[in-house]
């Protein structure tokens, strides 16, 4: 009798009750639960980042063009043909000039800003808000604003310089029309855009330093420079490296500022690999060559990322 009950009961529950049992089995086992919880994130990364990236990698090794229906494998032919062009060489050089000069400026300015903003003063929140604004505004919108500020005819900047007597009337600069000025302008606007994020990251690092350490340095007799360069900056070095890494990768791969302001001009003097890839692959329709340009710097950036992260881990202090 008792045996009959024991076997009958589970059978009776098969059906609607079976589903909750599978769930509870999943949820009660940490190894399954962990995988389950992380699955959406993994799926997201695979679909949104992984698939397009590997597609681009494959495109760079194929003969695909926009409108063609073939997808033949051609090995490294695209790379071989693209690196020979002067357009590519110019863009490669410009990419390094753009990314490194922008990032150096960002790191210097963000450190100065963060060191100033960590101090207490009246209206600190307002200054912090203003500094964060470029980051919260849509990039293209902000950049279009700059397009007007730097316009050859209606430039507010030129008008101001004229009004202050720094340049003669109608003698304003063609900010985006002269090679070196154009590069300077796109670098400056890119710095304007990245600065808030870098500042906030460094501020977070600065607030994590215990106040006693600063007090001790003061009592020990450290002046401003010694305090900054021997105590404060070394203590936030891991965070500086992370901020630097993010900024550098963004500067190497981003084209919004350049696309809106100069479209790579004048005469390709502000053309970088990211914008060249877009113009070649999307606008000119040569998907394969565009992909080859786009992934050209990938190995270098991966190497930079690994190097930065290793150094950051080695310098972890606490």
């Amino acid at each position, binding site marked *: 009798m008792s045996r009959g009950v024991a076997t009958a009961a589970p059978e009776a529950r098969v059906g609607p009750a079976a589903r909750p049992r599978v769930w509870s089995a999943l949820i009660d086992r940490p190894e399954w639960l962990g995988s389950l919880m992380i699955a959406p994130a993994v799926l997201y990364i695979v679909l949104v980042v992984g698939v397009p990236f590997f597609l681009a990698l494959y495109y760079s090794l194929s003969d695909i063009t926009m409108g063609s229906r073939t997808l033949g494998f051609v090995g490294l032919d695209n790379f071989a043909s693209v690196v020979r062009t002067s357009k590519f060489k110019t863009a490669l050089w410009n990419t390094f000039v753009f990314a490194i000069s922008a990032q150096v400026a960002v790191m210097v300015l963000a450190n100065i800003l963060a060191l100033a903003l960590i101090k207490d003063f009246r209206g600190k929140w307002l200054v912090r808000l203003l500094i964060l604004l470029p980051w919260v505004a849509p990039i293209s919108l902000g950049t279009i604003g700059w397009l007007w500020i730097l316009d050859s005819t209606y430039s507010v900047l030129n008008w101001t310089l004229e009004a202050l007597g720094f340049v003669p009337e109608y003698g304003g600069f063609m900010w985006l029309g002269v090679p070196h000025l154009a590069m300077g302008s796109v670098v400056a606007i890119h710095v304007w855009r990245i600065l808030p994020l870098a500042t906030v990251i460094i501020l977070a690092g600065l607030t994590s330093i215990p106040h*006693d350490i600063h007090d*001790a340095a003061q009592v020990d007799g450290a002046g401003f420079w010694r305090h900054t360069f021997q105590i404060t900056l070394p203590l936030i070095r891991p965070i500086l490296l992370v901020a630097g890494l993010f900024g550098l990768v963004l500067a190497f791969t981003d084209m919004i500022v350049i696309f809106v302001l100069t479209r790579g001009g004048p005469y390709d003097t502000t053309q970088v690999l990211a914008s060249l890839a877009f113009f070649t692959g999307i606008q000119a329709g040569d998907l394969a060559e565009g992909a080859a340009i786009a992934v050209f710097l990938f190995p270098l950036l991966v190497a930079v990322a690994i190097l930065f992260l290793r150094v950051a881990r080695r310098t972890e202090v606490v």
Partner: protein
Amino acid sequence: MATVETRAVTKVFGDVRAVDGVDVATKEGEFLVLLGPSGCGKTTLLRMIAGLEQPTSGEILIGGQVVNELPPRARKIAMVFQSYALYPHMRVFDNIAFPLKAQGVPRVDIPGKVQWAAGLFGITHLLQRKPRQLSGGERQRVALARALVREPSVFLLDEPLSNLDAKLRASARDELQQFQRRIATTTIYVTHDQVEAMGLGDRIAVMQGGRVRQIGTPQDVYDEPADTFVAGFLGSPPMNLVPAGDVLVGFRPEHFLPAGAQDGAAVVRLPFRVTRVEYLGADRICYGVLEGRFAEAKVTAKLPSTLSTRVEPGRTHEFAVREKDLRFFETASGLRTTPRPL
């Protein structure tokens, strides 16, 4: 070497008077302890002496010179922080060398001085380590060595023992005092621990609510408390305070003994209904209330283990205090007043 003096020093944060008109003066080479509960303003006072906080009003003098406008580095002081505040990215050697470099000591002299300071605290073998590789006690020694290395004229110590475990704290206290006697540098030491204060200080300044309630030798503040706060803050258990008309009568638990145990001298007899007895090994602590004249006043008695009188909870015993051990305080102000017959 120098003395430290504060004149009517006040510090106001918002509408809180953290330090309220404090006058304290150290003697040459003295070990002065600032003692008080948390939030009494002792650390703020120390930080103002160090120059890390600016007083709202009042003057701070080091070596007879007003230093209000001087930055910390110009005050010839050294400070040890509660957290030790070692520079985590520097080796012990560089930590100790840092104040020397900052002071512009010639490069060739630095290793010798670091070795000397490290030798004093027995940490020469740790010079190549980073602070995170050290134990609490070792970190504390490094902090002391860093403070000592530039031979300051005043030492400021902010609860330097509170992060050590109880056993280590006792031995560190001993070392600290011997060391201070040897170098004979004026030292101001902040703590909330009365045992530390009594054991270390040449004099103790008891603080509460931003004010100094009493300053004196450990015997002074313990035996002759200036007010009910000092009487209640020092001693474990604290002084018994019993209302008697317009005054409070105070007596230490260890002076409140069974009548038979009090020898010869004039005594005040007090019937004591014991409610609870704690046996602590060296002592017995008896809690209860008085009967008769001071009915229902809660008091404590501390009987040494050498006293074998039976004391049972729930019964009334005849206890007594010697008249010379009674202290009198005004009920309204809490201040000490003249003895009067009970």
